[in-house]
């Protein structure tokens, strides 16, 4: 199905996910180049999170094919898929609540590294995400934003080659968001990244190529500047934000 010469990390063909009468993802053909940083925008309920879940096997698509580096992975189990090198930060932080932040991150690092190295990596990631002082705290008792950062550290510690971030900047203040943007840019030097986010200030700092979802289907795919100027996108999604950007 795919041309062996094109280096697509992930490619979906006709990807569709229906829940009863609701079509959350509707015949999406999507491809991400090796090393690319892609932003995924779209109204609430457009199907972005559902799309992520189809990529990671949390949901089995109703129709269509998902390929990872040319290999079809549709219908695979989650753990088999992510072992290929995918890391995901989910929209609602998804953590090992009873465990410490360090232990959370280590469980991820240990997939990739032997014990001593895993320890070092975990500590490094906690520092990088600015939550080193929370290392010993039980994550179930952290504030929402703290949990977001711990989850990010966890995802990074697994050193995935494809990173999926679902609203990473939610609940961050301006300067925290700026730091996160720098982190994502740095990350994209070594990995392919897809970011879903509604915070346009954040998006503007990192975005190059942008895909806009609407009603489960791809609505536009263009560089960020074009998207910001797009009347239709402004209509369905950006509202007055577009004026601010302009």
């Amino acid at each position, binding site marked *: 199905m795919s041309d062996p010469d094109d280096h697509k990390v992930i490619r979906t063909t006709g990807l569709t996910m229906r829940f009863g009468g609701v079509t959350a993802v509707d015949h999406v053909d999507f491809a991400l180049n090796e090393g690319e940083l892609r932003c995924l925008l779209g109204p609430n309920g457009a199907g972005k*999170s559902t799309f992520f879940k189809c990529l990671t096997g949390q949901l089995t698509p109703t129709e269509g094919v998902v390929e990872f580096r040319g290999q079809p992975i549709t219908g695979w189990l989650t753990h088999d898929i992510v072992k290929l090198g995918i890391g995901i930060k989910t929209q609602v932080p998804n953590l090992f609540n009873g465990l410490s932040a360090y232990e959370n991150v280590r469980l991820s690092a240990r997939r990739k590294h032997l014990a001593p190295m895993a320890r070092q990596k975990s500590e490094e990631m906690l520092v990088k995400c600015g939550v080193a002082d929370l290392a010993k705290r039980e994550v179930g008792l952290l504030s929402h934003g703290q949990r977001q950062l711990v989850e990010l550290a966890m995802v990074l510690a697994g050193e995935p080659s494809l990173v999926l971030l679902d609203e990473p900047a939610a609940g961050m203040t301006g300067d925290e968001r700026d730091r996160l943007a720098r982190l994502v840019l740095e990350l994209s030097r070594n990995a392919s990244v897809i970011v879903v986010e509604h915070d346009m200030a954040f998006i503007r700092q990192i975005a190059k190529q942008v895909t806009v979802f609407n009603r489960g289907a791809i609505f536009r795919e263009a560089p960020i500047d074009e998207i910001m100027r797009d009347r239709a996108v402004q209509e369905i999604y950006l509202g007055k934000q577009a004026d601010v950007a302009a």
Partner: protein
Amino acid sequence: MSLLEVRGLKASYGVVPALHRVDFRAEAGEVVGILGHNGMGKTTLLRAIMGYVKVTGGEISFDGADIRGLSVNARARAGLGLVPQGREIFPNLSVEDNLMVGIATQKGDTGPIIAEILELFPRLKRLLDRRGGALSGGEQQLLALARCLCRRPKLMLLDEPTEGIQPSIIDEISDTLKVLTARQDITIVLVEQNLDFITGLSDRVYAIANGVLDSEIPRDRLTDPQAVSEFMGFAA
């Protein structure tokens, strides 16, 4: 007298203190914004006002009465409403039933309320039959707001209401809240990270850092992110 007055409030989780000193007030019809970094105690403050977190010192008076001894549901019936962080939708109830819960505990004719609310949140109209747990993140946030408004609270505590909401709807929410407060129906305490949103809406903005809230950020400084950061405790 202020609708809500918080003085010298202290609160803790078990033996672990989370709020050291909180002083602020909200006049009827006002929107009071609270800014602060992650983990500084914003959520804790709202939960303490609502009655979830044990208050270990200080005073909270609402509508002229000391509410420290009241249970959460009594505070709700006294006119407090909370839109919590994390939305807390009833996952196995339909959207309509989620809205109905807020109404079901009230007496009197409640028929038109839902229709009114749906006018404020038209996006929920086509989702009425869907299970709360099946909504997208942003849809859930809208539902949480709508559900709180169904009770027509006097004071609404909003914990990061724009989180996960698409830009155009943030504007809509902002407009909606402005309409409501303009009618003097409602007073809002707003915890928010979105600087534009909070400045656009708030009459006054406070900063909280490490469980201490005492300083109001002057309006003219709010447009300067650098200054705001300084108020919040540490520079970027």
